[in-house]
């Protein structure tokens, strides 16, 4: 036995078997114990429950959902809500972050001070404190009857923000926006990718306009297909009785979450933007100035492209973090993926399966986001002797 331990190959093999085997054994024991425990409570394991109807409703959904619909649909609702909140949050946070980050890289002391105050205040207070704070603010607006009226089309009330909307189903609105964004993505791809480098510039411009028009028409068609019959296309919110009817309602939960993620994420993204711009060497900018580029050209052709390449890898991590932060919606009752799954666990008792779906869902969302951003990162990375047109 001792001689076997001294044989280094054998020892290494044994160590690995013990480690991997031990890990698998612990996980397997947990699952088996969990199953017997759950069976004792009368819960049959398996994924059959996904086709049963839930019997409970969610407070916010992009697609039609009622308590009679099955469990798999409620999970889809949760994922869509997470992606919806994540998209709004990321876009707003990026806008705020770019503005504040740019302010922190200007020559103007006052702008830099303002940016620094913003970043230090909002970055150093936990996100969840900010979520509670904004939720308390938005739920304390006056009731619908005394709602704050902005130009007769937007109403701020304790039930949420009401605005003019289209009489279309949530799903087709979502698909239409996705189609339009996909069109924009193709346009960016055509502008940036190596494959289209040799294309005639005039043809390229024409192609881009055509795609933009096409995307616009496709999304309009999707909106048109999804419109709710026997109603006008545009609907305005109007006070009827104790509440508003018509228009779209942005719930207090959604707006509190979006505001907090935008403000908190904006502070972090501002620092990333600042770091990116600071990483561009002084020599590059001086060289650009000395060959006679204008201020705007120095920015758009030298500083920004170089800064973007420095920012993107860190930005990827920040985006993934912000998507994960949407789970805090459960604190104020926003029906995101996590909240939907935890309610489902409470209601159905299918603990192991739902936990697996929850973790798998987040792994898929985060890995795909990271994969897309890494792909972009590789595509725009500076190559050895790349000549820019």
């Amino acid at each position: 036995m001792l001689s076997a331990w001294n044989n280094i190959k054998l020892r290494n093999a044994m160590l690995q078997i013990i480690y991997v085997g031990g890990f698998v054994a612990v996980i397997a024991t947990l699952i088996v114990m969990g199953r017997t425990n759950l069976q004792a409570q009368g819960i049959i394991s398996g994924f059959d429950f996904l086709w049963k109807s839930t019997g409970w409703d969610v407070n916010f959904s992009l697609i039609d959902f009622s308590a009679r619909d099955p469990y798999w649909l409620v999970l889809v609702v949760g994922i869509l809500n997470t992606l919806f909140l994540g998209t709004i949050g990321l876009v707003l946070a990026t806008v705020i972050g770019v503005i504040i980050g740019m302010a922190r890289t200007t020559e103007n002391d006052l702008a830099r001070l303002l940016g620094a105050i913003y970043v230090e205040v909002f970055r150093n207070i936990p996100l969840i404190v900010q979520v509670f704070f904004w939720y308390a603010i938005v739920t304390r607006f006056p009731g619908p009857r005394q709602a704050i009226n902005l130009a007769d089309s937007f109403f701020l009330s304790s039930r949420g923000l009401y605005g003019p909307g289209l009489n279309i189903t949530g799903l087709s609105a979502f698909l239409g926006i996705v189609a339009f964004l996909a069109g924009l993505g193709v346009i960016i791809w055509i502008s940036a990718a190596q494959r289209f480098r040799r294309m005639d510039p005039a043809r390229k411009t024409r192609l881009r306009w055509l795609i933009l028009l096409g995307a616009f028409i496709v999304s309009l068609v999707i909106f048109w297909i999804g419109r709710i019959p026997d109603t006008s296309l545009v609907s305005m919110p109007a006070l009827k009785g104790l509440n508003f009817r018509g228009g779209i309602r942005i719930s207090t939960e959604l707006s509190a979450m979006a505001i907090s993620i935008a403000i908190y994420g904006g502070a972090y993204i501002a620092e990333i933007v600042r770091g990116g711009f600071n990483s561009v060497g002084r020599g590059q900018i001086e060289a650009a100035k000395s060959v006679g580029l204008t201020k705007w050209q120095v920015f758009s052709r030298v500083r920004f492209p170089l800064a973007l390449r420095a920012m993107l890898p860190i930005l990827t991590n920040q985006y993934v973090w912000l998507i994960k932060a949407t789970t805090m919606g459960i604190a104020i009752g926003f029906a995101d993926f996590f909240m939907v799954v935890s309610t489902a666990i409470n209601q159905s008792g299918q603990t192991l399966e739902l936990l697996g779906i929850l973790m798998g869902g987040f792994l898929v969302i985060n890995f795909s986001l990271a994969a897309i951003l890494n792909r972009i990162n590789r595509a725009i990375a500076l190559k050895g002797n790349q000549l820019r047109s």
Partner: protein
Amino acid sequence: MAMTGEMGRPGLLATLREKYFSSLGNAALSIICFSILALIVWKFFDWAILSAVFSAANGPEACKATDGACWAVIDARWRLILFGLYPHEEHWRSALACGVVVVMTVLSCLPYFWNGRSISVIWIGGFLAFYFLMKGGILGMPVVDEQSWGGLSLTVFIFVTTVLVGTPLSILLALLRRSELPWISALTGIVIDSVRSLPLLTILFAFAVVLPFLLPDWASGDKLYRAIFGSALFFAAYQAEIIRGGMQGVPTGQEEAAKSLGIRYRHRIQRILLPQAFKNALPATINQFVITFKETSLFIIIGFFEILASGNAAYGTGNWTFAFVEVYAFIAMIYFVFVFSLSRYGAFLERRMDVGDH
């Protein structure tokens, strides 16, 4: 300097003009920023100090008469926010315990104590002092169960325990991940990456709420410690990558030299690799501590009475319901003081180490 030398120092007006009004755009930016700054400073000063009500002596009614901040709610409820449901006459213990942790943190920021033994002694000693002060049962202090802990001291307890459990775990994970044995490093890598790609909340939820359904009663333990273990696992997954990054900064030649001298694995790790890895990883480690401290606030969601929950209770009951802004401002300020000073210290270290390297 050479140019202004002959003309003397430029006057105040000239400096101002050059700095803030050099062009039309710059002038506009200056004016806008100055107005925003002035507005914020004035509004804040007026709200927080000039028109504020500080004393709870006149009750909530005094606050409703003014537009300013109602600090009276803090005056009336600060014990609830800081100490939660801890017995009233024992509050000094909770305060002293938090003081111990502050001293412990300050001590570990001094380079004098930067070696494995001192840091371990400080943290384990500090933790034990904290724990026995809070729990009691010795030196004639009555026992106070974990269920009645709350407020700031619970937040601090979660943080310190997470770090104490998570740090050894993170070193272990980092070493396993850089193991030369392919199966061990691959499996550890999968575990670390999976934990990192999950939201902390789902891990806390799994450990605190779901685990008792799966485990028999004797194995599930107290909810608080289960949740802390989940939080420590999450911390360790991130910290392991930071330490691994620090290890990669140690030249491989050192390890090869140590091997060729016949130094044992344990000593190679303990005396050569880890000290340098920790030094390399120090700024990122402090950053991770800052994030972990902020994330203790998530414990409110799985039902613990930490400082945010006690704050919600402070304005949620009775006749203070209108004064939520002040309560959140107070909690935000407590977090800000801890987090800002730690992150400033981290930034200072980073600069200092940058200077040292060149």
